[in-house]
Each structure stands twice: as C-alpha cells, then as structure tokens.
C-alpha cells in the first residue's frame, strides 16, 4: 500500500503526487520525453493535426446546438439558422468546413513526411498503422459530415458512395439498402450518418489519437537522417548540462516551443482561409438543397478523396472496384512492402527516391483528374496515372529489396 501523509494539505503538490504521481507523469510525458534535436518543422505536423482536431471538435459542438438532423429542416438549419440568425454561427461553420479540408492537407503532409524519412520502419510500424487507422476514421468522419447539410452534393455523393457497397456485379442491393435504411438516401440515412459524425466516429478518433501517441513513446520519433539514437545516453548528456552535445531535447519546453511557433504560422494561414478564402472548402453545388429528381451535372467528392476516386473511375465496374479497394488498403502495408533495412531520407535511398517523388506527383495527377469530367484526354491521363499508382506498389518490394544498405545501417 502506498504511503499517504496524513498532514498533506488537500490538493497540495505532495497530496496530488501521492495520489496521481504528477511528478512522474510530468517527467514521462513531457520534461523527460526525449525528441531528437535533428528535426525540421515537418515534425510539428502532429501537433498541428491535434490542434486542428481541437478546432473541429469545438466548432462542431457549437454547430451541434443548432443543427437539425431532419431531411426537411437540415438544409435551412445550416444555411439560414446557423449562417444568418445565430451570432457568429457563420464563423463556426466556416471554421468547421475549412478545418475539415485543411486537416486532410496536413494529414497528407504528415504521411508523406513519414514515407520520405522512413518513419514507419524498424520499431515504428505501429505508429504507421495507428496513423493509417486515423486516416481511415477521419475519412469516414469527413464523409458523414458532408451528408449533414443535405444539399445536392450531400445527397448525390451519399447515393454514389453507398452504391459502391453493391460490390459491382455481385449486385448486393440488400446491403446498400441496409446501409441506407431505405431504398434511397432519406431520413434514416441522414439520422445514422448524423450519429456517426457526432458520436461514434469522434469517440473512435479520440481513442485512436491516444493509441497513436502511445505507439510513439517507446520507439521515439524519427529524425532527419534516420539516425538510430541511444536515447538514454543522450538524455544523460542533456541532464548533465551538455545541451549542445546531446542529440536529444525534452518535449517540454524545448520541442514544444518550436511546435507552438509552427502552430502560430499555421493558424495565420488557416484563419486567412476562414475569412478570405473559404469557398474552396464549401462546394457551390451543396448550396442547392437536395433534390432526388435532379442529378447534378458533375458529382465529385471533396479534393482529399479525389485520388482514390480516380483509381475507381477509369476502369470498368468490377476491376474499378478492385482497384479502388486496393488503393484504400495498400498504404497500410507500407512497412511490410518496404524490404530495405535503411531508415533514411528517400533522397539517399537509390531507386526509392524516384519511387517517392513519382508516387507524390502521381497522386496529385490522380487528384486533379478525379475532379475534371471523365472525357477525352483526361480519361487517358487518369487511366495511366491509376496504373502507375498500382504498379508503383507492386514494384515497391522489389526495388527496396535491391537497395544497398547505407553505411552504418544494418
């Protein structure tokens, strides 16, 4: 049994320490949580994501006070009540909409940082996997949120995406109806996506964020050179006052101070978008109320889903679905498809360097082609880009197997 000093004043430092071990917590989670010194601002993207999630959560709570999940009232509750009648309702909505879009930009930057520096390898596999789970859950959260204003794009995107579950020629109409709770998107559909968006998925996201942080604690974050650091030895140097020689810094306050600075710059950019350039995150089509009798001329997802949408689109029905399924899961396998032992920036890794930059450019090409109408040259470019994507992943184990070990790495 632990020792409790009967003379300790309630809520004094000693009293709390005996009950909560606050000194230990502070040490383990902040002042002696060691981060490599050799990092750049891309290492702050995790904090930027956490902050953006916070913005989404808080603005979402405010929107939830006035949003009405009823197919007859939802559109006006968003576009009239929140945008026109509630004090600063427009601000919460624009913050929520812009953050929902920007969060994916940061997620992609965060992911490509991880791929570039090999931060999914050697002990860091679970960081990658839990991060991918977060990506998938954020995608579901974004999609379910997009249904809520019940505009034309909500309705028709809901129609198209739930139709995918008929699984092509298998023609599982029953499954599609089960997901929708109706033959077409309607009240049951809106109600369940509302529940997913405001309760179940946020809970899952929060649990996954904790898991993601947890997976980071033992392997520690990677650094700009992929160097394997003896954290205990380096921490000892820091504690001995050799701050210049030590290769590590404590999370708090040293790493944090840089994170907060990056956050500041990020928020200037973010609020510039919120006040002066929000339209990119709020598609005009969704300002027409849902109309089951009128299909919009162009149906496309938000920009962050376009690359995988374009992998679906150029192929015939069944192969397209298979390619789409491939695109959805293949990133999960990255730590196991990369067969090279090298943990290093892609630019020092032979053919992998080209693999990385081709993948990045290819996904941007897919993204743009996913939005333009599928006709003429765009179909050709889209098809080629989709094949390049698939072939890149097929080639990955072979080119990384051939990779020469970099000096000093086993």
């Amino acid at each position: 049994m632990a020792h409790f000093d009967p003379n300790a004043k309630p809520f004094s430092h000693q009293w709390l320490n005996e009950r909560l071990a606050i000194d230990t917590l502070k040490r383990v989670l902040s002042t002696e949580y060691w981060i490599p010194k050799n990092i750049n601002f891309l290492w702050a993207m995790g904090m930027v994501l956490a902050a953006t999630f916070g913005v989404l959560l808080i603005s979402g709570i405010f929107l939830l006070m006035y949003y009405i999940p009823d197919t007859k009232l939802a559109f006006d509750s968003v576009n009239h009540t929140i945008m026109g009648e509630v004090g600063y309702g427009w601000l919460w909505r624009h913050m929520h909409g812009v953050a929902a879009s920007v969060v994916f930009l940061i997620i992609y930057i965060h992911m490509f940082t991880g791929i570039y520096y090999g931060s999914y390898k050697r002990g860091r596999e679970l960081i990658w996997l839990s991060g991918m789970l977060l990506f998938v859950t954020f995608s579901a959260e974004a999609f379910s949120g997009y249904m809520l204003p019940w505009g034309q794009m909500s309705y028709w995107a809901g129609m198209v995406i739930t139709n995918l579950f008929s699984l092509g020629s298998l023609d599982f109409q029953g499954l599609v109806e089960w997901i929708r709770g109706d033959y077409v998107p309607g009240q049951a559909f809106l109600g369940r996506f509302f529940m997913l968006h405001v309760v179940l998925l946020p809970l899952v996201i929060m649990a996954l964020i904790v898991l993601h942080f947890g997976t980071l604690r033992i392997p520690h974050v990677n650094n700009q050179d992929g160097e394997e650091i003896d954290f205990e030895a380096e921490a000892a140097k820091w504690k001995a006052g050799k701050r210049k020689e030590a290769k590590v810094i404590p999370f708090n306050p040293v790493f944090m101070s840089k994170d907060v600075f990056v956050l500041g710059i990020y928020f200037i950019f973010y609020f510039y978008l919120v006040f002066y350039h929000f339209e990119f995150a709020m598609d005009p089509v969704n300002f027409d109320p849902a109309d089951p009798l009128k299909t919009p001329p162009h149906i496309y997802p938000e920009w962050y889903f376009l690359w995988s949408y374009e992998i679906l689109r150029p192929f015939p029905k069944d192969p397209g679905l298979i390619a789409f399924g491939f695109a959805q899961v293949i990133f999960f396998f990255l730590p196991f498809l990369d067969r090279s032992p090298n943990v290093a920036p892609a630019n020092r890794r032979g053919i992998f360097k080209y693999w990385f930059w081709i993948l990045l450019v290819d996904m941007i090409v897919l993204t743009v082609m996913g939005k333009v109408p599928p006709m003429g040259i765009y179909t050709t470019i889209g098809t080629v880009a989709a094949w390049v994507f698939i072939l890149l992943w097929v080639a990955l184990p072979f080119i990384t197997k051939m990779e020469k070990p970099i000096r000093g790495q086993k």
Partner: protein
Amino acid sequence: MKELKILAVVVFFTLVTYWGVEPYAHSVMHKHVEFKNFKYEDLKPIAAKGDPAKGQALAAACAGCHSIKAAKMPAPMDPVTASATYGVNPPDLSLAGKLLDEKYLAHFLKDPTHTALVAHKFKNRPYPMPPMATDDQSAADLVAYFKSIAPKEVTPKEAYEFACGRCHEMRYAKWTQIGEEPKTKPNIQTKMDEEKLKFQEKLAQYKDHLVKYMGKLPPDLSIIVRARSEDFLKTFVEDPQSQLPGTAMPRVGLNKEGYELVFKRLEEVGDPSKPKREAVGPWVIGYFIIFTFLAYLWYKSNWKGLK
C-alpha cells in the same frame, strides 16, 4: 536555410494541387460564356427620340394588365387571378425605365417574345405580353415615358422584387412570389393560424399557375450567390440561353445598374455575414501574428546554444 527549402517544396505541391482541383478543374467543368456588360449588342440601336407625353398616352393600354404605381394606376387584378390569366403576375412598371436597358425595353415593346429570348417556349401558345409598339417612334415614346416616371433611388429589395420576385421566392427573406409573408399568429385556443393558411392557399394556387407557365418551379434564390459563381449569375441574367440552352427563364433586360442592385439583394440575403467577416478577419489574423511573434521569441530562447 534548409527549413525554408522544405517549406517551399510543401507550398509548391500544395499550390499545384489547389490550382488543379479549383481554378483549373472548374474552368474545364463550366463552359466559358463571354460577359457582354449588359450591352445587348444583338439588338439594333433605336435612333428615334422619344416624347414622354406621347408615351404617356400610349401607356394607357399597358394599364389593362400592369399596375403603374408611380403614375397612380392600380393593378387590375390580384396576383393569383393575374397568374391564372397570364401564367405569371405582370410586373408593376414604375421601375421599368430605371432598371431596364433602354434599347432592350424599346425592342421588347415591339417584339416581346424574341427580345426576351422565349420564342422556343411559345411556339404553340401566345406569349402573354403582346407587342405594344408598332414602330421605333412609339417604342421610343413609351421608353421616354417610363424613364420620366421612374424614381431616382431604387433599393436592392425593390429591384429584386421587380426583376425576379414574381417567379423566384426567397424564403430566407420571407419573400414569396405574391409578396412578403404576412406576420400572423396562431389562435391561442385552437393553435391554428387561419390567416397564414389562407395566405398559403393563395401562394399554392399562384405556384400552380407558375409551374404550368414555366414548366417547373423557378428556384428559390435565398442563397443563390453561394450556389453559383458571380460570373455565372451575371452572364446568365444577361442571356439565360447562353448558360442553360432551352431554359424558360426570359432575358429580363436589366441594365448594369439594375443588375448591380439585384446582385446586392442576392448578396445581402444569401451571404449576410460578409460585413461581419470583413470586420472580424483582421483582428483574428492580427492576434495570431502577435501570437506567432511571441512564440518565435520563446522558441529562440529555448533553442539558444543548442546547435
């Protein structure tokens, strides 16, 4: 510095993606229609000089269907009865001389169907507006008359009601095709709002006539400024057929000032937060600039002597 190079790479790929999915993709998706600045160049200039007094005499014929409140001529019928007869309630003409293009109005009086670009809709039925001017001179006289009676100042709301409001409702501003929704209260005993129900009955009848006339109910324009681009709206109003071939929407013939007033109305109803946004934006961004500056000092003090 290395970090700035990395930032440049990130910004570059972000901007390329943005350019591709926004300006570029939209330029491919939406056909380009040249904006002609409400000049109506397809219509020949009218050389005749109008005489308002002669126009006034001719305008007596207009009052058979239209009200001209500026000249104290009341509407011959209420909106619902008028819509049963004509399909849509004919507009009050007080503002015609102010908001409509002079040349357009003259041509419209001579040949309404072709000037409004609705001939395709009236092949087998007569257009409710008959030609009212037999030659350029009488058209010019009528135009001169309408210009002489038009008020100097027109509000955006009045412009909207004149140009759009008899076909397009605007529920966020409580505007219906037959006027503003009356403020009514339900009976405290029965919980029924009889007056409102009566109004709605009239509105239902009007909409019924309107749908028969137009082919479908013209859309509510409450937030059309968010649903369509500024470029689409002005080119569409200038020439509806250019953007939506075959549409029943007539060319209204607004002049530049008239369109600007209408657009102002669309904007104040469809994007009411614009003034607040512009007021609050600099403060929030200013806050974060100061925040970032302080954070930079904190960062520098922590990283001093580390490298």
